[in-house]
């Protein structure tokens, strides 16, 4: 029987910079609870990499763990170097939508293609929060941001479906209203190998909600609740209706040879040739 969950066990005694009502607290809680339920008394079996933005601050410097806070968008490449030389540790990348599928998009696709054995948790708040609420690759069409004052005129990117197409082994999406599902999906992903991607759709009441008319974080959560549909439900909806919905659930679970395994197999082969 595991001890009762205490989030403090995993956190440094450092003041958190997140705004009141931020969805990051939910994601952080879900992750650490998953870690606890998997039986990790501490984070010594983990190395965290994160880029720039609010979500990157989830592990760095808050987790009592090894964490590498990288330049904007470069968390996945740095995680690549770490994982290849330390295949025995769990490498987890935290990042926002701007970090992972904005500036870091190409790294994201290539890591999924290679099936690099890392878990990427992307907190999608649909906006560039830390820099003051600019349009993100995930901002819904027509939504007003500080750089799209007349409403976004770009189509948003579906990072989850992209991860599936690029070759990820495990992909799921939930929102911050789905706390249990989020925790369970993290647990499941942590037990797997290969490239695993979890998208956590999250509220940013300060840089997003406030500007589009949500009174507070609670209203945004209500919005998530009312607009989330499961993959099954989504199949029955036509495209127009679907555009306004958040499709949640497990998108894929499959086994593919992992990048780490492939690299070490290559080294083995090379050394055989050398011996001859």
């Amino acid at each position: 029987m595991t001890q009762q969950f205490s989030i403090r066990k995993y956190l440094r005694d450092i003041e958190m910079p997140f705004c009141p009502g931020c969805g990051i607290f939910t994601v952080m809680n879900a992750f650490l609870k998953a870690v606890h339920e998997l039986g990790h008394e501490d984070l010594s079996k983990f190395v965290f990499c994160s880029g720039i933005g609010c979500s990157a601050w989830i592990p760095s410097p808050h987790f009592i763990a090894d964490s590498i806070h990288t330049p904007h968008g470069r968390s996945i490449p740095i995680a690549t170097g770490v994982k290849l030389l330390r295949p025995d540790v769990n490498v987890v990348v935290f990042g926002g939508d701007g970090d992972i599928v904005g500036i870091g998009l190409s790294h994201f696709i290539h890591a999924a293609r290679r099936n690099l054995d890392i878990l990427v948790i992307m907190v999608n708040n649909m906006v560039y929060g830390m820099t003051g609420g600019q349009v993100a690759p995930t901002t819904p069409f027509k939504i007003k941001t500080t750089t799209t004052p007349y409403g976004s005129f770009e189509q948003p990117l579906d990072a989850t479906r992209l991860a599936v197409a690029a070759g990820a082994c495990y992909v799921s999406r939930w929102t911050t209203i789905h706390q249990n599902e989020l925790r369970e999906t993290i647990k499941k992903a942590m037990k797997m190998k290969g490239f695993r991607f979890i998208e956590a759709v999250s509220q940013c009441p300060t840089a997003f909600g406030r500007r589009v008319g949500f009174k507070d974080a609670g209203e945004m959560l209500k919005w998530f609740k009312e607009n989330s549909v499961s993959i099954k439900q989504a199949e029955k909806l036509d495209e127009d209706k679907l555009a306004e919905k958040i499709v949640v659930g497990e998108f894929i679970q499959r086994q593919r040879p992992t990048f780490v395994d492939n690299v070490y197999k290559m080294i083995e082969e090379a050394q055989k040739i050398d011996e001859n």
Partner: protein
Amino acid sequence: MKIAKLNTYFWQGNEACAEAAIIAGCRFFAGYPITPASELFEHMAKRLPQVGGITIQMEDEMASLGAVIGASWTGNKAMTATSGPGFSLMQELIGYAFMTETPCVIADMQRVGPSTGQATKCGQGDVMQARWGTHGDYSAIVLAPNSVQEMFTLTIKAFNYAEKYRTPVILLADEIVAHMREQVTVPPIERIEIINRRKPKTGEKAFFGNEEVPPMPAVGEGYNVIVTGSTHDEYGVRSTANPIVHRRLVERLNNKIQNHAEEIADYESYNVDKCRIGIVAFGCTSRAIYEAAENAEKMGIKTGYVRLRTLWPFPEQIIRRLAKSAKKIIVPEMNLKQIFYEVERAAKGSAEIIPLNKIGGGELITPEELTAKIQEVAKEEKK
């Protein structure tokens, strides 16, 4: 061949760099193909797995240096190689490596720029980029080989400086040195000095301060190290508003190299204290100085030279000495005066600095051209 041993080899510059890196202990290479550095990458792809190392091709230059930095934090020695356009892309992570004190080696085989310029032709236009490419205040260690043998020795030196000072080191070669083949003698392995980073003792926690070069833990070993490119205190904790924390950090990062400038500064010199005409050159351009100096001596013009092996820290003392005896110093470069102003700065008005520049097409400054320049300058002086 697991590791190159005491022997004489006929290597290309790129190969010599790869073999030296392996001897220095490099076990990770991540790169993105670019002329004229691709042969180094290809040689590493073949050779590193043979010694249990990893070579991977990443999606771009940022990713390459990123993977190298990640690998370095696992306690391994790692490098990447590129040329001007790729080097430009890497600047973001060079700054990060400097700020996080991550040992790594970046080889830049220069070609003609700006931009894609002339991909297969030799240039020396990345000199200032190697020194000031990334933003903020930092001190670069930049080494510049002029032969294949020196590509070998300076690559080992680059790894040693990276480990000793916990910093990225730039090996600034050029297309000619990277592509030419020459004889290389590998000394007995036990006579090659290999420096490894200092690891923390139990209980040590200030991985980013307290000492000039703090000990470096590896991730995954229980130190709970916080690595960040943002301003941080000696424990790695971000402190982005405190001027004292920033000054203390960045001044230390600069000083740990500047305080050892004379020790790091490396050059070959001839006749510096009793010459009329001086030459200061580096990389492939410096290959012309020997013959030119000999020609000039035959004509009765006392000539001395300094051939720079480190561009930064800039070997100021030796330039000052040269400027005290030589009235005029010629600086031949395959760029439009990038090291020229450094020489002028170091000479402090004691000598007139004369540029000799050539760009494009990979055309070298020949010994004849340099001799002619010496003659011209000597004639002017007599007037």
